[in-house]
């Protein structure tokens, strides 16, 4: 049994401690906004925040998240108000299929915390999520819009 604090709520999950956090979140807690894309921390679809750090949860053992504050895409909005990244995503009509966008948004939310006004070079370096639909042009525009929001 591992106690996870997800989006401000405690969950006791009955998993092997080595179970990737992704699957504990999706299958044991039932929050499916966090996506499985590769299982080897390549694509970033599974990105969540663990104590504020953008983390590829498919390759992060559940036991290592115990006692930490986990935020998933479902917990990014506060008090019913969308996070400025989510709002910028709506304003710029960013998602196509949308499958990678939970992870993309979580990665960008962390970037803006560390670098409130990221340059294109910062974005290139820090945002490495795969999007097969190819939404990158809108992603970049929306990041700058969120930074200036």
């Amino acid at each position, binding site marked *: 049994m591992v106690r996870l604090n997800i989006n401000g709520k405690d969950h006791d999950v009955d*998993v*092997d401690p080595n*179970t*990737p956090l992704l*699957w504990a979140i999706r*299958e*044991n807690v*039932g*929050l*499916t*906004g*966090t*996506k*499985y*894309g*590769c*299982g*080897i921390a*390549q*694509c970033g*679809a599974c990105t969540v925040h663990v104590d504020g750090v953008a983390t590829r949860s498919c390759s992060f053992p559940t036991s290592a998240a115990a006692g930490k504050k986990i935020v*998933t*895409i*479902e917990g*990014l*909005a506060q008090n019913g108000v*969308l996070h400025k990244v*989510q709002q910028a*995503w*709506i304003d710029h*009509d*960013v*998602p*196509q*299929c*949308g*499958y*990678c*966008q*939970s992870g993309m*948004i979580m990665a960008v939310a962390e970037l803006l915390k560390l670098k409130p006004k990221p340059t294109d070079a910062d*974005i*290139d*370096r820090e*945002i*490495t*999520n*795969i*999007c*097969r*639909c*190819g*939404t*990158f*042009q*809108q*992603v*970049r525009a929306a990041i700058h819009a969120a930074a200036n929001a």
Partner: protein
Amino acid sequence: MNFVPKINRRSFVVGAAAVGGGLSIGLELPTGPQVVRAADGSPEIGVWVVIRPDETVVIRTARSEMGQGSVTGLAQLIAEELECDWSKVTTEYVTPGQSVARKRPWGAFSSTGSRSIRESEKYVREGGAAARMMLIQAAANEWKVPASECSASDGTITHSSGKKTTYGKMAEAAAKLEVPKDVKLKDPKDWKIAGKPLKRLDTADKVVGKMEYGIDVKLPGMLNASIKACPVFGGKVKSFDTAKVDKMPGVKKVAQVADNAVAVVADTFWHAKTALDALPIQWDTVGNEKVSSATIAKFLEEGLTAEQAFVGNKNGDVKAAIESGAKKVEAVYSYPYQNHATMEPMNATALYTPDKCEVWCGTQDGEGAFGAVVQTSGLPATKCDVHKVMLGGGFGRRGRADYVIQAVQIAMQMPGTPIKLIWTREEDMQHGAYHPITQCKMVGAFDKDNNLTGLHMRISGQSILASVLPSRMDKDGRDPVTFQGLNPSGETAFQYSIPNLLIDHAMRNPHVPAGFWRGVNVNHNAIYVECFMDELAHSIGVDALEFRRKLLGKNPKALAVLNAVAERIGWDKPAEKGRFRGLSQMMAFGSYVAGATEISVEGDKIKIHKLIGATDPGYAVNPAQIDRQVAGSFVYGLSALFYGEITVKDGAVEQANFDTYNSLRIAEMPPVESILMPSGHTPWGGVGEPTILVAAPAVLNAYFRATGKRIRSFPLKNHNLQIA
């Protein structure tokens, strides 16, 4: 969550509520006026529109949404004719089971070949117009005035006297009227909703993690399955040792699936996958275990000069033209296998009982998936259905039903228990329906005045139809799809006029399954034709644009898109120092497209400073979404050009995940410009795929201009070239 059908003499209900609720349609066959009602009781106004008392307009869609924006675009077309309030519009999928029960009132379900909008635009607009006429007639009846004195706008019906009512109030009465057959469509120049760059209807759920994909489906009592098929295509399961894993946590069943796969069913996917990884499986790989990329290449190479070949396009006498030519240019190209690698790996959820079989999944072909469920379950069509959810990418891969069939095969071994089958990324990478592998020999001949008098294009390689739809092949075994972009006429016509032309195909089908892959055969056909056009132009010292213009003289629409990109890139002025340009054009999926790029090369790094795509799809339903499709197609096409290669060793795919099958990241995304120039041609063209074809040849032609090196095999990583 599961809807239980009520069957009695007065009414029956087809289908079931899809996961998440609200998508089911109740079909009443009442004794009085025939009103068909949605699950919430709201009436249908014709088959495409349901209007709720609160004025919500529910627009039905049979095609699939996988990010390309078709559901929003189709809703725009219907709303345009319906004259409803766009802010009140929501959409729902109909199911193939409902379609069968009602004699296919929504037409085709397929979202492949960039066809969702172009092949249904007419009947969906007529559906919207018919609903508008019924609503107006209902109001006219109530007011006892001629319908001709009434008009509708934004969901409000107004009589010339100034009397007003709303669609929500008139829906019940309208639903009792006959659906008019004779409807007149608006002139597109009067469009207010269609043709506008409206936002997608499905974004809000995607940014908060609420959008439901197949992988997210949850049903009561559901178990999860992980599967492994024989890594060598065509191989079979010999044996597996269930005892080694059946006591592992959560494991409920170890099941053979067909003759070539083994699945573990467990409480969670993670438990299923963990147990499957630990399961010893012996495979029978006899037959294909010695096939490699090298043996496949040799097999194809032989086809380049083979006697027998299927003809795709022919005029004049190419042999004579080449023999008598003053100058001959020859080049051999090749194009590899590539995987779709949708972000969401293949998955499907199936529930089987001896008298019902239902599947919940993302599919590009609802009816194909439905047919697979009917066939696999052995149940009559009336006892089956497929409930579609959002696709986490399609690109052609989800037009196949292999993963649906597997889910049903597993569910049939556990009747009454819903089974969600999720492929691992590794399974997805190694059991794809790959972009076909081909080689191509191009031979061009000039007369002494440097006129191009002959062109022979010999493609050798794999047929997609032979792999997935042999029934659609010509009687003599020819695969007409091979000649996309090369045909004498039609929606994928070759645009150049060359007096002696032969384009033929020596079919060579390796054992690796091929499938439709975004752009399908135009990806390689465009590289072969458009790179070779530059080779030909270069050989006689003629400008690449001038050379093409001369050969495109008879095709003003092809010329128009080419001229548009040339003008945008500033072709008539020299590029700034260190920058080099390339062009390309072709017709595909009913649209004329052209591309232009400007690059610089530093060592082994190619920097794309600009990539422009022009599209003439006839009509543009949502310009903003088309721009996104163009940019997205370039990401897909450039990923393929720089990284995309599936190789074969010992009969199996070597790549397993994104670490060995890379995809473009944001840092590599070039600035993309989309020029949309709808010329009003009919039939309409598509937009999801066509522009993918212009990216690679434009970049390759620019690279030649920059370096003098002509690259003829792909991806570029094999030439140690990177995208900067």
